[in-house]
């Protein structure tokens, strides 16, 4: 009777939490959909004529609105018509009759960001509050115009001469006359937003995750209860040894990382990746040791169900890893990216299957030998 009541209370609580979590997730999704307008990419062409060293028009303007405050990736595209990103390597600024410079202003005409020349192509991260913004495009044809622009927007007055020195050759080699149609693009992508609705949605999503985990645990245990897994005394002993080996593996790995970092001998990935890798190594050592010593699965656990769930997780990680590889997200600048953790996840789950398979082979052979020996004794 008591058990039945407990079960009813659990199911009720689970359903209630699941409904709350689903509501929260819907809020987050709606919030995300509402923000779609903030991610924009505009593309347009501008014909600029240079006659006797003077550009016509000398300047143009582009407006955009930010609805939600947050951190944004802000990038400009800049290419002559008919050219693609691939042509950037062979294309020289001196092939044109002018240098493009931009300034970003907020609605009170306060300058927020400015850049010029090929630096336009670099991504910039900006914190933007809600409001109207506009970008001014200046077409500079000589060094005097550049010095005036640099002094006003790019640097302090005493730095102008050194900035101008860097651009001296570019301006000297510019074409004096000609018509150029330039293709400009402006991309404002939300990087991170600050919203209570979104944060609530995220927290409630985690809550739903916990509910689903509890449900899975109930499904995967023989008595369908949330009681903790039961291990016998030998299993407890082996699990303790597994923890010890995993701990020392992690200790050695992080110690090694520290030495590499201090001595600057090697730096093949960022900190997030290396930290994750250390944890993975520890988990793999622990799991493989426990499986080999038949102490991984609890007495009240249904092994086939757990194995199937592991297989599904492994396959899901493999698919994500393949997708990441196809998109080139695994390596960047000879460094591993955090996305490679999916590859390690796949390897971890694969190692579980390999260990179980090898263990079965060894146990079968050993049992056969014992049986043979027993028969001979009889």
């Amino acid at each position, binding site marked *: 009777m008591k058990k039945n009541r407990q079960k009813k209370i659990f199911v009720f609580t689970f359903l209630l939490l699941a409904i709350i979590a689903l509501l929260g997730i819907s809020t987050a999704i709606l919030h995300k959909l509402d923000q779609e307008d903030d991610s924009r990419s505009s593309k347009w062409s501008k014909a600029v004529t240079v006659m006797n060293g003077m550009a016509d028009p000398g300047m143009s303007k582009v407006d955009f609105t930010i609805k939600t405050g947050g951190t944004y990736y802000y990038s400009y595209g800049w290419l002559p018509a008919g050219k693609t990103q691939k042509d950037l390597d062979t294309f020289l600024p001196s092939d044109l009759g002018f240098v493009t410079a931009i300034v970003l202003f907020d609605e009170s005409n306060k300058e927020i960001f400015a850049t010029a020349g090929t630096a336009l192509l670099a991504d910039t991260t900006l914190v933007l509050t809600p409001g109207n913004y506009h970008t001014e495009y200046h077409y500079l044809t000589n060094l005097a115009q550049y010095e005036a622009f640099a002094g006003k927007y790019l640097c302090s007055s005493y730095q102008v001469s050194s900035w101008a020195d860097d651009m001296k050759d570019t301006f000297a080699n510019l074409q004096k006359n000609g018509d150029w149609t330039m293709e400009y693009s402006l991309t404002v992508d939300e990087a991170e937003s600050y919203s209570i609705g979104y944060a609530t949605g995220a927290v409630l999503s985690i809550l739903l995750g916990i509910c689903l985990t509890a449900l899975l645990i109930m499904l995967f245990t023989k008595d369908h209860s949330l009681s903790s897994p039961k291990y016998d005394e030998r299993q407890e002993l082996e699990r303790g040894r597994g923890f010890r080996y995993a701990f020392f593996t992690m200790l050695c790995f992080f110690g090694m990382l520290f030495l590499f970092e201090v001595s600057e001998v090697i730096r093949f990935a960022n900190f997030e990746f290396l930290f994750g890798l250390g944890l993975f190594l520890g988990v793999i050592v622990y799991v493989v040791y426990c499986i080999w010593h038949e102490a991984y699965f609890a*007495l009240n656990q249904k092994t086939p169900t757990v194995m199937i769930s592991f297989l599904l997780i492994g396959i899901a990680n493999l698919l994500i890893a393949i997708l990441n590889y196809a998109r080139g997200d695994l390596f960047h600048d000879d460094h591993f990216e955090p996305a490679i953790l999916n590859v390690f996840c796949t390897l971890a789950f694969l190692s579980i299957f390999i260990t179980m398979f090898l263990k079965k082979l060894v146990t079968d052979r050993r049992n056969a030998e014992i049986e043979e020996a027993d028969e001979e004794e009889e």
Partner: protein
Amino acid sequence: MKNLKLKSARAALDYSQQDLADKVGVSRQTINAIEKGDYNPTINLCRSICKVLGKTLDEIFWEDE
């Protein structure tokens, strides 16, 4: 050292390793490890096994001279 007394006592009652493990409340692998001599059980587990098999500690776990 293999525990043949345990194995024969279990066989006498026609219990498989899994049957004995279920009655004692441990895994089949633990019973297997005890029989093969790979694991020395605690006194509590020894008592549980003896109770299930209807034997004394001496009969199952005491070494012959």
